[in-house]
């Protein structure tokens, strides 16, 4: 860990070994029993060969032969998984990004508020989250652009995967204010329509114009059912289909959110917690069955970093397909963040941002064993009580 941590974290971190791997042409094979495939299923192609920080190929465990220049790391029974990605996080920027002067402020960039020294980044990494999409606080109708950064920070600034999108819109009580517009739901939609129309007419902000031209992706954070309706209606008038963030009434809205054209915009739900109502928890499954792509927000840094996996596990327990949930934690989230070309799936050519879990990441007793970023092992969990350092004995 790069940052000072206290108490328990220090105790755990004491046992952590960080390997600054050689960054050459040497190749590494991480051999596990299974892997989370791009379609979200657990495949038996459990071995990943890494070269030059990228995934070179996938293979079955017994297909990897020892050879010169190939370092082999073995984890019996483990599951290799693309690094998890948390969406709509305020990690690193919590309470630093509250721009309240203007309700329409597309020029804001979340990356400008990110503190690379935030210890929450390290906690996320330990929980298997290798990247987070950081959104500006959803307190403005147009809040600014999100940034997606790695949780592993090796230098004086965060390692950004993307800093220019998607453009974040927000609807709901959080955007209302008494000292500026909007003060109501219709007022918020007046501002939203105005901004989109101005951009269409060539008078608006550049980023909104890019959205209209299909060159910049958009995401709308919607608090209530009527906010979702308003967003679908208003963006629909401009032939736009942004990603929607909505949790509370997803069961009822599932059909509307599922069928939105060939671009297949995703719906982001969460965080689900142990106190969420059954109806809320059924939302992800309802969306998935209706045909929507679902991704998750785990609530970092306000909640525990483990909250992302808890959200997915609860979604599955309440009816979501397990493979769809694994996609939502990885490739689906990468697609929403617009970084699916670099991370989120184990495919040749992708950045080797990889987590080794002791079992299926959806099972909450599965623990993180190792985390790799760009093919370099950046975190090794201390062995559990009763297991020796070699990771072998389970007695």
């Amino acid at each position, binding site marked *: 860990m790069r940052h000072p941590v206290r108490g328990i974290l220090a105790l755990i971190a004491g046992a952590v070994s960080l390997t600054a791997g050689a960054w050459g042409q040497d190749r590494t094979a991480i051999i596990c029993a299974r892997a989370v495939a791009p379609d979200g299923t657990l495949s038996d192609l459990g071995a990943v060969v890494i070269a030059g920080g990228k995934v070179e190929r996938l293979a079955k465990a017994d297909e990897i032969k020892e050879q010169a220049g190939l370092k082999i790391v073995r984890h019996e029974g483990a599951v290799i998984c693309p690094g998890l990605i948390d969406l709509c996080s305020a990690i690193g920027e919590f309470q630093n990004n509250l721009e309240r002067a203007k309700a329409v402020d597309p020029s804001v960039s979340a990356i400008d508020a990110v503190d690379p020294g935030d210890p929450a980044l390290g906690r996320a990494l330990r929980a298997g989250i290798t990247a987070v999409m950081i959104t500006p606080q959803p307190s403005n109708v147009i809040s600014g652009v999100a940034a997606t950064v790695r949780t592993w920070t090796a230098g004086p600034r965060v390692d950004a995967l993307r800093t220019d999108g998607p453009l974040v819109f927000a609807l709901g009580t959080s955007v209302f204010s008494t000292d500026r517009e909007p003060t109501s739901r219709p007022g918020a939609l007046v501002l939203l329509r105005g901004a989109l129309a101005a951009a269409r007419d060539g008078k608006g902000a550049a980023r909104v114009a890019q959205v209209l031209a299909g060159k910049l992706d958009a995401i709308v954070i919607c608090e209530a059912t009527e906010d979702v309706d308003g967003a679908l209606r208003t963006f629909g008038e401009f032939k736009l289909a942004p990603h929607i963030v909505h949790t509370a009434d997803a069961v009822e809205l599932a059909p509307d959110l599922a069928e939105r054209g060939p671009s297949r915009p995703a719906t982001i739900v969460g965080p689900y*917690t142990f106190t969420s109502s059954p109806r809320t928890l059924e939302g992800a499954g309802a969306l998935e069955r209706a045909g929507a792509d679902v991704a998750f927000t785990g609530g970092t840094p306000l909640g525990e970093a483990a909250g992302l996996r808890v959200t997915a*596990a609860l979604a599955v327990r309440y009816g979501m397909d397990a493979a769809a949930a694994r996609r939502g934690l990885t490739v689906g989230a990468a697609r929403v963040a617009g970084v699916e070309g670099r991370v989120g799936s184990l495919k040749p050519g992708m950045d080797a941002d990889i987590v080794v879990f002791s079992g299926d990441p959806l099972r909450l*007793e599965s623990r993180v064993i190792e985390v790799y970023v760009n093919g370099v092992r950046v975190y090794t969990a201390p062995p559990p009580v009763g297991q020796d350092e070699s990771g072998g004995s389970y007695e």
Partner: protein
Amino acid sequence: MRPCRTDALFRSGRLAAILAAAAGLACAPGARAQLGGLLGGGRNQSATVYQHARIVTMAGPVIEDGSIVVVGGQVRQIGKDVKVPEDATIVDLSGMTVTPGLIDVDGSLGMGTQPPTGPGGRGEQGDPTARAFDGFDRYATDLFKDAVRNGVTVAYISPQGGAGGINGTAAVVRLMPGDGPWAGEVLRDRAALCIDLGSGEPPIQRLQTFDKVRKQFRGALDYREALDTYKEDLEEYEKKVKERADKAAKESGDKGKKEGAAGGAPKPDKAEEKPAVPSPSPSPTPPPAPPKSAADEAVADAGLAQPEPRTPGQPGPQPGGRPPSPAGLPPAGPPAAGQPGDAAKKEEDLKKPTEPTADRKSDVLLRAIDGDMPVRIRCHRSEDILNALELGKEFSLKVAIEGGSEAYLVASSLAESETPVVLDGVIGRDYFRNDELHRRSIDAAALLTRAGVKWHVGTGPSSPQAADRWPSRFVLLSAQLAAQHAGVGVDALRLVTTDAAEFLGISDKAGRLAAGMPADLVVWTGDPLDPGSRVDQVLVGGELLYRAAKNEPREGMK
């Protein structure tokens, strides 16, 4: 029970629905009859055999393709090869996994957020005589349903809402088929004495709370001492009364035997009776002493009638909670102060000792002191945990720490005193808080394991802050989270079945599947630890409590 004889029939959605409805009709009277007691005799004695299931008994190795014979609400046989009774109803559970009902060792199922008793409200200290079950809403159907469809059938409930102090006693409830769709049954009342050291309060308040709790326990010991002294004094007194009566009888016998026989034996044990008046006849009465002034008489009467009122259970006005000296008791034998001590006067002053006022609060605490009732001390901060251990040592209590966010910081003290910890809210830490939970760690279980501290996982009391509360349902997921780093050999399922039952003292009623145990079965569509598995049906005491509707995995009930 259910006439489903073939796999195909059992799995057919429409048929299952019809059968379930028929079964519901058939079972209704039985269910009603058993509301009072699960194993009330004379109930349905026909056998049901659940076949071809993967059975995780928690009482031995997993049985693949095993069978369970249920008769009269009890598991009669369990294993790979069982003798199928004639006329038994066969239920095919191919592909299913059966586990015992899950147990929450620290929950608030059906408790709402209101304290069960009037005076125990927030900001006030609770009352040790308050009982959690009195506040249990046995028809909190929606909550029970969500607990049951996650496999939970038994929950520990504690008095809720007290700000700090001794809040009352907990109960263990089992969810049951009832008159309505669901009901709760007490499996164990007075399962623990519940103390809250108010870790969320400011330091001075916490010190006061702890001091108050300690005084209450000391008061209970004082009460016991007063009772013991009273018993001794009473014996002494009765002995003396008898002696005097014998003497009087002898004297009167000397005077005139006829009258003595008529008067009958003296009854010195009657409370109101004047001890020195063994006989109704006036002549043999022992001399009523030298003539006395009315004032003297009044003093003596007052001394007898109102020995300074004693309520040792609440030594409120006494500084430092120091036990009142036994000398404070009205002495039975010696003459009252200020009275001249001639022989006649001595006889005159023989007074019946006064019984201490009954103190039900202390009675409850004495049960804990005697080790008849475990004590749960809810606290989060390390200093409060150490105080709790001190309290346990001082009064030889069977303490378990509840909450225990910082228990890992004082793990060695916990290990030394062999004090178990009930972790709740394994997840839910808020890094931007600076309250009693701010050091809560997801690694607590690992550190406690390493230190050799026994720990359990519960879902915790309801929080007034939580927008909606669905208690107890995620006890298995909580255990899985805790087990994540806890070490090898930590089995999340064991934590919430056998371990939990043992901890709650209900091993003979729940937590494992074995011959002679109640038939509380949870039928899962797969491995219970896999979130993709669903609870297909739940039986409690052999009766169907819940069945997932086909094609609607999250809906439907009996």
